[in-house]
């Protein structure tokens, strides 16, 4: 199992942070462009899924799976979006994303007076803690050689 990369968007669709662990293929465009496309797609998928859903949807968690990877979207009550790409077998990703939100984002961005909340995150401590939490997760640990 593997964790590939993570995008963090604020409620307006701005990319606040991007982190990458294993990524064998780059998209061939700039990060900004890629982020815009990613956000646009998530936005569309969300509205589509909500519209066609035969039952009432409330949960702030959504995944889609291709043959090769799985995209996990976790949305907080404050409409921040965490998007994590993993392989298709990864387990416990929802819990991991919740942990990233409460123990990394809230602790080291919200509780840091020097981080502006609507700007890309510059704090090195945030990046370090994020890396630590992801690398500690079982989904990251049991990766194939």
């Amino acid at each position, binding site marked *: 199992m593997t964790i590939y990369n993570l995008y963090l968007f604020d409620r307006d669709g701005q990319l606040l942070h991007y982190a990458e662990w294993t990524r064998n293929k780059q998209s061939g465009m700039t990060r900004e462009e890629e982020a815009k496309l990613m956000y646009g797609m998530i936005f569309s998928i969300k509205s589509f899924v909500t519209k066609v859903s035969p039952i009432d949807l409330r949960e702030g968690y959504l995944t889609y799976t291709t043959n090769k990877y799985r995209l996990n979207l976790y949305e907080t009550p404050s409409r921040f979006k965490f998007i994590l790409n993993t392989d298709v077998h990864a387990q416990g990703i929802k819990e991991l994303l919740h942990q990233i939100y409460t123990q990394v984002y809230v*602790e*080291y961005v919200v*509780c*840091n*007076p*020097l981080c502006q909340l609507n700007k890309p995150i510059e*704090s*090195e*401590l945030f990046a*370090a803690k994020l890396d630590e939490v992801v690398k500690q997760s079982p989904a990251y640990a049991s990766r194939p050689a």
Partner: protein
Amino acid sequence: MAEEAMFDFIHMEAVSYVFQGGEKISEHTTVPRIKHVKPKDEAISKLEHMGFATGYRLVERLTRESGRYKDELDIMKYICKDLWVTVYKKQIDNLRTNHQGVYVLHDNRFRFLSHMAAGKQYLQYAPRYLAFTCGLVRGCLANLGVTCVVTAEVTQLPACKFQIQVQRG
């Protein structure tokens, strides 16, 4: 957790309010300011004064059950243990003194800095988050009968040290 966050956030706002006020005045007003007082120093001393007033009252409230302290060192131990635990939810990690009225309090993980950085990032902004605490300590000591000057120093976040210089005579 929630009540601690409340204190953290209100302190954050106090700092940013005091500093923004200083910047705005220097940018937008045409009123001549006293030349040798920089807005930054003014803000720091404002925060320090807030801390002093808080500490002065706080220590009265906190020590209402305990007896008198036998000497200065005893008071310092009180600051390091009880006061710090009440306010910052941890003890001071190390207390040093030269027995001539200088005390140095080391906190290896100071609450207001611990969420900011681990290392040198944001080092230049660290002093403004220590001013309130310096005042707090000075206020507490003042009410316990010790007149002193409290300064703080950071070389690497989130560790910092507070130096207390007791004034005699």
